[in-house]
């Protein structure tokens, strides 16, 4: 377990002090995947680096941070670019063992086992001899996670490990991190912009909001409305699941139907700027199992309905 009380995070810039987080308390428990959320520039990366001992905290030195930094019990995955055309996946992962090696870099059996275990666990067996500049972004991210795993630490901090990855790779990375936390009891702290993935997979969320960290279960933070406050422009209301659309056209449409066909029809109409009402003498859409009806006209796609309504409006 790792606790820090009243930690202020920020940096000094030309005599000025930029305060990002004001006297926050953090606590990290073993076996938890924690997602650190917050908008750009709110101090996520700086907080990670401060906790990792790479950046000085604003309020003096902190004993628990120093002890974590010096105990070689923390592994990192950062956004820094690694410039090397001669490093293979294996080479990069092997640097995790450097704190345990002498100056001649003689890998002991224990080191080789840790490296091989990490490679197998992350699933990099096939590419372990490829050069790191020849693999994809997703594979590089997995390599860095394997590197952190090979360090055999209780804590792993990751700074936006899912940035620049496609949806499948993002999911793979987060699922891997979660299983590492649950399987090996590691404490994994991930800063991310993936609100949806964090809600699905995190054991705990840290939301940076108004220079504080709001800490809680994802569901609690949804119900308290905090996530809606912290991310007001995400386009939908988390608590109710409602998408938010501004009605831009002063046209009211009546919609009859049920189930997911009703929901997506409503979504398409609202997104286009129409308002859905209980009753409208002008447009009334009836949803059946395989088609939509407006009066005598029948439609098989939403696109054709929207087109029809548009034409009607122009005609009048």
């Amino acid at each position: 377990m790792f606790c820090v009380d009243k930690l202020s995070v920020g940096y000094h810039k030309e005599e000025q002090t930029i305060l990002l987080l004001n006297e926050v308390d953090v606590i990290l428990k073993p076996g938890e995947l924690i997602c650190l959320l917050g908008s750009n520039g709110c101090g996520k990366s700086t907080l990670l680096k401060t906790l990792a001992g790479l950046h000085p905290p604003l309020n003096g030195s902190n004993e628990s941070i120093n002890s974590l930094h010096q105990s070689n019990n923390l592994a990192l995955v950062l956004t820094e670019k690694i410039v090397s055309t001669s490093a293979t996946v294996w080479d990069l992962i092997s640097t995790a063992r450097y704190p345990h090696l002498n100056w001649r870099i003689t890998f002991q059996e224990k080191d080789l086992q840790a490296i091989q275990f990490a490679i197998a666990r992350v699933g990099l067996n096939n590419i372990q001899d490829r050069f790191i500049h020849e693999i994809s972004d997703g594979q590089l991210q997995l390599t860095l996670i394997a590197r952190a795993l090979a360090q055999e630490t209780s804590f792993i901090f990751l700074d936006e490990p899912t940035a620049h990855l496609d949806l499948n790779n993002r999911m793979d990375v987060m699922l891997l991190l979660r299983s590492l936390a649950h399987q090996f009891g590691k404490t994994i702290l991930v800063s991310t912009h993936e609100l949806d993935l964090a809600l699905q997979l995190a054991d705990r969320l840290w939301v940076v909001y108004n220079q504080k960290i709001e800490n809680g279960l994802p569901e609690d933070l949804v119900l308290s409305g905090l996530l809606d406050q912290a991310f007001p422009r995400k386009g939908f209301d988390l608590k109710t699941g409602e998408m938010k659309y501004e009605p831009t056209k002063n046209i009211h449409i009546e919609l009859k139907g049920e189930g997911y066909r009703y929901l997506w029809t409503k979504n398409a109409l609202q997104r286009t700027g129409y308002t859905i009402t209980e009753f409208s003498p002008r447009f009334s859409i009836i949803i059946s199992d395989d088609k939509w009806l407006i009066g005598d006209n029948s439609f098989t796609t939403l696109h054709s309905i929207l087109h029809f309504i548009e034409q009607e409006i122009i005609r009048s």
Partner: protein
Amino acid sequence: MPSAPKNRSKLIFLIFLLLVVAVAHVAIGGSSVPSSELINALFFKNDVQLVWQQIVWDLRVPRMLTALLAGASLSLAGLQMQTLFRNPLAGPDVLGLTAGAGLGVGICIFLGISFSFFIPLMSLFAFGGAFLVFILILPMTRYIKDQTALLLIGVMISALGSALLGILQFTSGSDELQSYVLWTFGSLGSTTYYELFILLAGLILGIILAFANTKNMNAWPLGDAYLKNLAIPVKRARLLMIVSASILTGITTAYCGPIAFVGLSTPLLVRNWFRDFNHENLIVASCLCGSIVLIVCDLSTHLFSAHVAIPINVATSLLGAPVVIFFIVRLKKISI
């Protein structure tokens, strides 16, 4: 798996090649020594005309050994600078050390400090100049954490040195100017055995410092944040690289002049050929390759004309530039 074993055969090949070019260098020269006399002079010493003996032992062997040591030194200095700055453009002269040495020599020549019979004095000034720049750079490395900024400061110091030299050149007579220009051409032939010993000592010291730093240099591409996390002593590692490169460049430049190109291009070619993450192999390979390249370049100085050997600095660029261009075009890019 660790990449060490896969490159062992390449290292053995390089050792073999070095032996071949070293022997070729002693055998081929401005005057043709009969091969029987050459072997006699080298191994049996008796029964040989004094002139052959002198040509072999007082001219060719020291010249070959100078090329061997200087090539290895410059190449190893370049390797460390490229690692330190994470930049393929970095060479042994980037910190302004060569410029400092040049300024030292310039002062020595243009201020008329009797150089004509005091080649060692010139070397002393060259080393003094390089060392002064080193002392200037050292405290800056403590405050400037950014490698690229340090690289730029090196470029600026070089510019400053050139400007000061320009003043000296502008105000000096033609004789001094000629002497200085001659120094900038580089020379491998004016080293005594005593000076060879100093070159050797410098190289050994440079190699020891580099080997002591292998682990740190391997991890260096990860960047400062990861390095700190891996408990790598970043400041000490950086200092070791700078000290090692400074000693290697300073001493070589002092005795052989500002030899261009070898220090920049050889480690690049070694990196791209070996593709080895482990600096232990890169250090050895760079030294061997640097020696081979400089010996071959020196050999080629006789090829252009039967009577006059062209300056070594002309040869290194003349041979080196097309080779590097060829490699870059073939590899499409070159990086560390």
